[in-house]
């Protein structure tokens, strides 16, 4: 009897141990021991970024949640982002207009794309589509895309991209169904590109200079980074650049529009980005109305130009190439070129309101030559 009890205990222990190891296929220790020469790992779970069920995305030690003030629209997907830095490693914020960040080698950025089944219950059941890693090694970044398995237990490294049917109920309670496009590995650099080098986009001081929620508490995230040793020599927050959340209706229309264009367009449309060819620059810091597109004719827009002459026709949102391309889902015309198959109605409305608010005569004053309207 006693014997039997003991066996039961042992069995129970074994079971626990087994269960435990199932839930945590990779523990914190394995993350610290990550061999960067072996990358990329075949399964996302092998990295050990997350504790418990992988799909709960509960970060392990040294994996820190972060959130940019404004977020790129990718077919209404939700995103959760984390940065991993080994113990003793930290980033440095550079003294420039955007507060770009100097990352040490072996930094990992983790970005999960998911859809809650019901957008009105964002913390409820969800479908995770993909997890994109950006890993810095030998001074340069590389992207590693993982596609989540059907059973949502793990994600598998796949470089050739793919498509996935995604369903959700939107905020109005309407069913939505799309064929979500997962980019191939080299498409990552279509956006993550500065002077033809791969770079992160959302991890700059201007995007991080605000307070966020860490579950049961809130903190300014750069302060959090400082407290956790993720950043060294943190500057006075007041002196760091700061971009707003374009969704914040208390902010000025111009600032909201610029924030939207920055996070949705400026990764390409900037002086050192792949769309520099167009001469249309849409970063938050840009002040030259011509470079922002006012009375600017297209260069290689093709049928993307629709029947319009200028990227922005001040005062005429419906006669501007910018809104025409945002309102299109036709490949070749739709902007951004990758990352969406739907129209972002709220973003389009914001940019239309902004263009409508611009005065044609005031804008003409920026030009010395006469030209046709």
């Amino acid at each position: 009897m006693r014997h039997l009890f003991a066996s039961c205990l042992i069995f129970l222990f074994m079971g626990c141990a087994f269960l435990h190891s199932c839930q945590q296929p990779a523990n914190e220790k394995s993350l610290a021991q990550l061999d960067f020469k072996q990358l990329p790992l075949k399964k996302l779970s092998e990295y050990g970024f997350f504790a418990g069920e992988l799909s709960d995305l509960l970060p392990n030690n040294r994996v820190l949640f972060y959130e940019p003030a404004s977020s790129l629209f990718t077919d209404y997907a939700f995103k959760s982002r984390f940065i991993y830095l080994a113990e003793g490693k930290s980033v440095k914020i550079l003294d420039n207009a955007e507060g770009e960040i100097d990352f040490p080698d072996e930094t990992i950025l983790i970005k999960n794309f998911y859809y809650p089944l019901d957008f009105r219950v964002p913390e409820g059941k969800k479908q995770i589509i993909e997890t994109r890693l950006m890993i810095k090694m030998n001074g340069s970044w590389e992207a590693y895309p993982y596609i989540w398995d059907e059973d949502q237990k793990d994600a598998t490294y796949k470089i050739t991209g793919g498509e996935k049917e995604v369903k959700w109920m939107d905020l109005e309670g309407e069913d939505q169904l799309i064929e979500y496009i997962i980019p191939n590995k080299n498409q990552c650099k279509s956006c993550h590109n500065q002077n033809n080098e791969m770079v992160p986009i959302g991890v700059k001081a201007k995007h991080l200079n605000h307070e966020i929620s860490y579950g049961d508490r809130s903190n300014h995230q750069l302060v959090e980074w400082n407290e956790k040793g993720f950043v060294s020599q943190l500057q006075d927050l007041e002196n760091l650049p700061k971009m707003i959340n374009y969704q914040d209706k208390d902010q000025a229309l111009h600032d909201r529009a610029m924030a939207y264009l920055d996070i949705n367009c400026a990764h390409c449309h900037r002086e050192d980005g792949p769309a520099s060819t167009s001469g249309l620059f849409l970063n938050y810091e840009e002040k030259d109305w011509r470079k922002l597109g006012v009375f600017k004719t297209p260069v290689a827009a093709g049928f993307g130009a629709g029947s319009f002459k200028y990227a922005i026709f001040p005062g005429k949102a419906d006669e501007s190439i910018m809104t025409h391309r945002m309102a299109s889902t036709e490949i070749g015309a739709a902007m951004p070129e990758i990352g969406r198959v739907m129209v972002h109605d709220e973003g389009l409305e914001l940019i239309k309101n902004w263009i409508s608010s611009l005065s044609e005569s005031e804008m003409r004053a920026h030009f010395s030559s006469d030209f046709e309207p």
Partner: protein
Amino acid sequence: MMKQSFSMILLVLFLCCSCGNSNHDQTFDSNNLLRASEAAVEKLIEDFILVEDGGTISIPEGFYALKTQLILDNKKTITIQGAGMDKTVLSFRDLKSGGEGVKLSGQNIKIENLTIEDAPGDGVKAQHCDGITFRKINVTWTNGDKSKNGTYAIYPVQCRNVMIDECIASHSKDAGIYVGQSENIIVKNSLAFGNVAGIEIENSDNAEVFGNVVKDNSGGILVFNLPGLPKSDGKGTKIYDNEIIENNHTNFATALNESPNGNTVTMIPPGSGVILLAAKEVEVYNNKIHKNKTVGLAIANYHITGFPTDAPDWSPFSSDIYIHDNQYERTLALPDLSKEMGQLISVYNAHGKGKTQDIIYDGFWDTRISDDINTNPMKICIQEPQMESLHFTRFYLLEGEDNIKSFKAYSPFDCSLKVQTNVSAISNL
């Protein structure tokens, strides 16, 4: 041998494209090729991602239906090698996202012996390349419906050392062969047909365009400088030994009955052989410029577009142009009336309404240099044999639409000048 087969393709093409306004001619029918298996397509996508410096991506015969872009990212000394223009076909008809079918960046990249079809945006784009060779590639759209065709077929931009050789570009809604914001360029022995613009050199330095056949486009060969670009003004282009023939195709850059949009190419009047727009240091010689119904060669300034003409480090004027020893043949067809520039030529030329012009100069000039255009302030030089018998018109447009004047006198422009190009360093690419 390869040369011979290329000539054959040219010959076949000529036999079947003597038609007029809308042709859907293809150099061959890719439907007859065996479809590559899904695994082979997947492998091709992987090859573009995983190829290492110095490597070759060989693409065996077959029809590859791609749903994602093929991107070569920042690699060195790579050859992308098909089994032949009529053997290896990359079709992007099913592409769901991405601005171009094939995108290339890196150093010493070659793409050869294949066909690219039906990319929704551009066919093949090369950006930030130093050393990029397109050889014996055919880029086209197979739709009858032109409104769905893509923008550029062969599209190097922001590149140095560009070679385009024995290629075919057809049916693009903008330019078939478009070289933008680049330097050191050769475009030779290629064929551009059925595009809005055949070959276009834009905001680029040191280019030679020779030995090409440019036929049945709306505009044959264009040299443009557009304002407000990172590469602000290009200079040094020679265009010689080309056949620029019957570029009378409808301009389908915008839908029928729609007026031009902000893309300059939408303003091109069908029937234009060569158009220089805000071009700098260009020499055009020894070309056959035949049967372009509106104008053989037009020298234009950016003012004619009606768009803003101020931009940093850029001039809206064409200057230092030398046109000589070309052969012109006019047609009896009426010049274009569908575009403003066509109307200007048809109605206001100096030789009589409805007459095709061989050479026109739109007659804007920089009045800060001289009050009198007869002093040839922009250095426009024209020395054609039998100039007497050519239809030359200089317009005067400074007094607005209601007071357009035109002149036959060419003597102010009877001069020569030296245009410098040197592409010998890339002739072995």
